[in-house]
């Protein structure tokens, strides 16, 4: 295999995803506005009557909202492969002399770039909100921001893969929407994005522990709030393991993908 050729292929796919992302301004705006609504309206409303020992509720859910934003935009990125299939653009890419693994990698990097742009903007907004005193208790330093971005990057790579796995099997955007909603909402609600996971009812705990998003949320809390349920290194380990696993599955799904 010619490495240089494959890298060029990955770059080509990435180039296209970035161009499309930058042209669809509404996508960027929507991906920023929704999390802010969650944070301010949901967080502010519920936070006025719910208290979590040691942290302000809005600060507490800030890592959860970041993860949610990444989860949604990453998984939904998979729908673009369904659109590519609806026209014959997917075939144009598949007949190019590059491997399907490279096509998959290019797609992941493309989707991850979208999510990272979104994450950076949201982190900056978080920084701004805590400066003006709307939310308090965030531990925002150069290091914590950097660590948060690494965690978000791992998460987006994992969930873009999940989205692409679904997309590689679906023929209609509606079908994709249906399947991904069934997946996204349980992942989000079970992750402890909106509540602490140390005092849950017995039936809920195993479900929470099985949700990979739990570890992403927990790791983010440990860098941005200095509170966490598990040890940071354990969170990152589980997250990285999950990311590798879905990338392997995704590569396989792309190899077997029908046109």
């Amino acid at each position, binding site marked *: 295999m*010619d490495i*240089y*050729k494959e890298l*060029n*292929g990955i*770059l*080509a*796919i990435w*180039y*296209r995803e970035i*161009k*499309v992302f930058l*042209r*669809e301004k509404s996508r960027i705006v929507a991906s920023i506005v929704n999390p802010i609504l969650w944070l301010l309206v949901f967080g502010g409303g519920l936070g006025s009557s719910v208290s979590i020992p040691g942290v302000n509720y809005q600060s507490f859910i800030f890592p959860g909202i970041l993860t949610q934003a990444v989860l949604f935009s990453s998984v939904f990125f998979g729908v673009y492969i369904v659109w590519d299939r609806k*026209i*014959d*653009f997917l*075939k*144009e*890419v*598949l*007949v*190019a*002399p*590059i491997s399907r693994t490279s096509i998959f990698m290019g797609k992941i990097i493309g989707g991850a770039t979208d999510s990272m742009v979104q994450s950076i903007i949201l982190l900056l907004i978080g920084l701004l909100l805590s400066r003006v005193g709307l939310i308090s208790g965030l531990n925002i330093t150069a290091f914590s921001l950097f660590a948060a971005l690494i965690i978000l990057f791992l998460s987006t790579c994992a969930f873009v893969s999940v989205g692409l796995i679904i997309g590689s099997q679906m023929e209609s955007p509606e079908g994709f929407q249906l399947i991904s909603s069934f997946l996204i909402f349980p992942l989000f609600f079970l992750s402890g994005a909106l509540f602490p996971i140390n005092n849950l009812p017995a039936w809920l705990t195993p479900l929470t522990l099985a949700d990979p998003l739990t570890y992403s949320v927990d790791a983010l809390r440990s860098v941005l709030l200095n509170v966490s349920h598990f040890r940071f290194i354990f969170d990152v380990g589980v997250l990285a393991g999950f990311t590798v696993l879905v990338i392997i599955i995704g590569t396989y799904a792309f190899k077997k993908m029908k*046109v």
Partner: protein
Amino acid sequence: MAIIETEDLTKEYDGLIAVNKLNLKVEEGEIFGLLGPNGAGKSTTLLMLTTIVRPTSGTARVNGFDVVHQPDHVRRSIGIVFQDPSSDDTLTAYENLKLHGMLYNMPKDLREKRIKEVLELVDLTDRKDDLVKQYSGGMRRRLELGRGLMHHPKIVFLDEPTLGLDPQSRENIWHYVEKLSKEERISVIITTHYMDEADKLCNRLAIIDKGRIVASDSPEMLKKVIGGDVINIKIKYPDLEKIKKLDFVKKITEKNGIVSLAVTDANKHLAQILQVIGNVDSVELRSPTLDDVFLLWKVSPQRDESAEGGWAEKIVNYRSKK
């Protein structure tokens, strides 16, 4: 040397045979047509020849390379214009071409040079920075044709290249295809179900039905099989017995009150035919077309079900098998 050669090429989808032991040979520099009704196996054949779909059995060599074992070599030898739009309409024409050049690993200088060349070839130079969204169907097809040529392929595949285009755009596309074949010596494979298109463009063609080739030759030779000119006569009570006795009538078919005759030197013999056949409502005399060839091979020009089949169709087929 044959630029494309298949041997018993076969594709099965869950028990449905889309392409059945196809043996095809295309010479270098030819414009070769694959004709057939929808679902005859044209597209599947194309997908196999372009390495997108793996054959169930049989072999195919494209530009001397095996489609299963040397897909990268095959891919570099071919350019394709797909049936549905395959350019990204949120990008400009230039960006679509740049993307193509990157996918084919062209160095920047070469890429820019080729982009310029193909834009000129398909007359889109002054629109190169417009979003493809703003293009008409014909312009978009031209862009995709240009893109398919950008990496200088030896063979170009055109899947229904003029489907849904207006007459002017069709003429345009034909013009480019002929230019390619003459000036660049590129071999062209076209699938179409427009008979006039096949007649005008192709040096040779194969009619496929139900995954098999039923006839293969030049358009002229295929039309000769008809045995002469075609006379269609609308008549209520034809005297076919008397017609059968005329030795210049090569073939008689009757359908929906219309009698079709294949006749040698029809101009000369028309009067004689009208004398014996009875009370005629109307008469049409014309040279044979590929449509007649199609009908001769009992290939229905339109069939809606695709051989690939959706899941609902598979269930129906499964149940009817039981």
